[in-house]
């Protein structure tokens, strides 16, 4: 399990920092060990639950990368996910989500170098974090090794060992939201506000009265 704890997944807008020439067919970013990318049309498509799922499956960290705030091709996508990460817009991250493992970068197309620098630093940082509690990482499923006859049997395992060897120490919340292509470390991704339900973001749904009195929220949220 700890073996898988070295991967960092970037949920990445295809119009933001252009890493195409560093990306292999399996979504691995070649220049940083353990860094992977999944491309989306817009960072606004990122659901907080995607981040949570990646962490649950054992990712050491998740990076959300969108364009410069103000320059979203779709006008508002990056603002939306930014607000969701900051807990200002529903759906938000669950309270229990380890926010140290999430990084948001807002970088324009030519800012590849910057992406690599920031992401590399973050990868090192999260790999140094103590492994998440077992309960949070049901990565027990045996990985079908044949499923990916990938060319990426690189030296990743070393990084994993490093992660294992890290001493238990509590880091301060280190997740940063980058507003100008400059890391703004004063702005951490804060937990969803106190009143928000841990299971579900507070979402108001207008529901027709149901005789059995069963609410829709429990039911619909169960299927994720």
């Amino acid at each position, binding site marked *: 399990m700890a073996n898988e704890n070295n991967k960092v997944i970037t949920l990445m807008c295809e119009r933001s920092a252009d890493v195409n020439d560093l990306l292999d067919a399996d979504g691995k970013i070649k220049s940083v060990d353990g860094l992977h990318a*999944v491309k*989306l*049309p*817009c960072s606004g*498509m990122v659901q907080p639950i*995607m981040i949570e799922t990646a962490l649950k499956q054992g990712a050491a960290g998740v990076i959300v990368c969108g364009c410069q705030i103000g*320059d979203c091709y779709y006008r508002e996508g990056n603002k939306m996910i930014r607000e969701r990460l900051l807990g200002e817009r529903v759906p938000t991250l669950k309270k229990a989500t380890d926010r140290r493992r999430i990084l948001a970068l807002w970088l324009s197309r030519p800012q590849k170098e910057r992406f690599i620098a920031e992401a590399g630093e973050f990868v090192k940082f999260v790999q140094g974090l103590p492994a998440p509690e077992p309960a949070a990482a049901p990565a027990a499923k045996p990985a079908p090794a044949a499923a990916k006859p990938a060319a990426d049997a690189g030296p990743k395992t070393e990084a994993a060992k490093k992660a294992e060897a890290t001493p238990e120490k509590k880091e301060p919340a280190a997740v940063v939201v980058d507003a*100008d292509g400059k890391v703004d470390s004063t702005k951490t991704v804060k937990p969803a506000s106190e009143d928000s339900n841990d299971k579900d973001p507070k979402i108001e749904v*207008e*529901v027709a009265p149901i005789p059995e009195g069963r609410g829709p929220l429990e039911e619909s949220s169960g299927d994720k």
Partner: protein
Amino acid sequence: MSAYEQLIKSGNKFFLVLEDLTNKIMTSKYNPLYYHGALPQFYLWVLFLSGLLLFAYYIPTVDNAYLSKGIINAWTSVEYINDKIPFGAVVRGIHRYAGDAMVITILLHAIRVWFTDRYRQYRWLQWFSGIVLFVMVLFIGQTGYYLVWDERSLALTRMTVYALEGVPLIGPGLKSWFLNGDTISNYTMSNYLFIHIGLSFSLLFGLWIHYVRMTRPVMTPPPAINYVLMALVLVFVFMFPITSGKMATLNGTPPTGFEMDWFFLAPYALMNVVPSVLVYWLIVVGITVGLCLLPMPWAFLIKEPPVEAAEVVLTKCVGCNLCYLDCPYQAIEMVPAPANSRFKLLATVMPYRCSGCGVCVGACAFDAIDLPDLPDANVLAQVKQIMEAK
């Protein structure tokens, strides 16, 4: 890749580099290029306000037949505003230069949306209404120059009448509409004022069309940018004060030339060089229509599959409104849910408005809306694949 695509691509690169630079100097929060649509909107408010103040003292008449001491007409009222009213010259200057600034910022806005490929497909209405707005703004600016009623106004009036008369079939009608009669009279002046102000207010209607498919259009720059925009205008107001030409006289020899203003009067320069009025209209109408059609599917000039609109999973949608609130293109409508549903509302996507951005996917906590191209399940599968690969 076609030459056109190449052009757009290098244009895009130009803006990316420029914006990178402006971001470094001003940070993205104060980067004026990120408020490209809000800049002309700001100047429009300035124009409305300064125009209102000018309107208070402006008198739309051409009377000078009995030119003597106390004559009052458009020209003298403008002089009065300029010389006698406290800050009159400043307000007049602001009105003039804010107009010029509006043209510049509209061009910047239009070129940016064009070069960054933000003008076609689901955005065609914004582009189309934008061109109409721009033509209206140019015409409003021209009518502003008629209102001063100096020799330039007279020359412009004569040229306009000549051009309108030359339109086949409806020419004479256009002429008498424009002059509000057969000859230049006091009625002409009140018509000018009506066109100038009436069209200005019609801009608001045009802007409504321009904005109707955008959620929360960015119309107001941060105050700091507004101050700078205003300061720029004031610099010109004080460095290059506005003056009128000589008062127009209807019974003297007509003026043969005038001082050019390239922001608004460029069509008159064109009129001077074309062989006939008909050619002039063909060029003017041709350019306008051509620009309007630029985003149309058969003129895309860019080969690309059409946008695949987001789709709602009817059985999963609980009608929570979140996608509707977050969609940047007003593409989602909440309709009453079918009778057998437990919920009151159901999200529906208007495919012709949808950009395929997936913001609604990010907004939905119920997994009920998806892009056919890239469902969220697909994203999760990719994540899983990466996690499971060794």
